């Protein structure tokens, strides 16, 4: 009797201590690690084993079960193709960012533009409204490219022609005294500059 009581109390004590530690830490991983030492105890938080992703579905029944798990219709559910990268049975959702969703519809989470229970894209953290935007451009992409490169190309061509055929006033170069300001321009004072004569006209 005493021994069995001792076992029970020990278990409860261990359990209490485990729950105390659970109260202080908020990470589920840490909880699992801490509670892993006590195999009789499991936290109530976190997804249950049935809610976590599983292996790639092979049979139609597995497909249906996976669709139900991800809260999708069986017709809509399409797993990510199994190419060895380890996606398992996670669904392939369209690569559309949250920018493209209706801003005026009353979403459950307006900032994320998502309703409760909706399947989450694999890259949902990339597609939030602060990050990658896949919404269509106002004008077709090829039109934008044509306009930009056409304009830049035209400007480059015109600048090149401007270098080739410069525009100038029909005047002779300006005449400076003292042999074209030989000393003022910092040339060698010993060297005799060539004689430059300027005339009135």
């Amino acid at each position, binding site marked *: 009797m005493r021994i069995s009581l001792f076992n029970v109390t020990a278990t409860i004590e261990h359990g209490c201590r485990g729950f105390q530690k659970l109260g202080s830490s908020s990470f589920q991983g840490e909880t699992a690690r801490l509670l892993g030492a006590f195999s009789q105890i499991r936290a109530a938080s976190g997804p249950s084993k049935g809610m976590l992703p599983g292996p790639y579905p092979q049979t139609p029944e597995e497909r249906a079960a996976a669709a139900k798990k991800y809260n999708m219709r069986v017709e809509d559910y399409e797993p990510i193709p199994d190419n060895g990268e380890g996606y398992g049975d996670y669904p392939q959702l369209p690569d559309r960012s949250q920018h493209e969703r209706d801003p005026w519809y009353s979403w459950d989470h307006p900032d994320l533009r998502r309703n409760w229970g909706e399947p989450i894209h694999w890259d949902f953290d990339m597609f939030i409204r602060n990050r990658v935007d896949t919404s269509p451009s106002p004008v077709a992409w090829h039109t934008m490219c044509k306009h930009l490169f056409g304009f830049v190309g035209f400007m480059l061509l015109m600048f090149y022609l401007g270098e080739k055929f410069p*525009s100038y006033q029909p*005047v002779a170069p300006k*005449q400076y005294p003292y042999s074209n300001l030989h000393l003022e321009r910092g040339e060698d004072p010993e060297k005799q500059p060539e004689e430059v004569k300027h005339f*009135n*006209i």
Partner: protein
Amino acid sequence: MGAHLARRYITETETEPDPAKPFGFDPEFGFGERKEREMVASQAQMNLAQVPVLQRDYCAHHLIKLMKCKRDNWPNFLACKHERHDWDYCEHQDYVMRMKEYERERRLQMRKKRVEEAQAA
């Protein structure tokens, strides 16, 4: 306004002068007697007045007078109208001379071409 450019690049590409290249004809050619341009301000005077190098041309004496007038009359920035006009007029005459030199060069080039064509014919 752009006739010289049309001549230079399209119609008379050989004879229209290029101001970037030096003009090759003898300065006395076609003149009976030509007066040399007179430089009034000396190099020492221009140095003392600290005239910028690009403004040390044949009108520098007017510019030095203007600078002195402005320095003496500051803050009255409307004071030196006469000196400014003298300097501007000198610069204007210098520019007109540049235009005349260009035109002279152009006419000499055309004459040279005519002479060559007459000799070839």
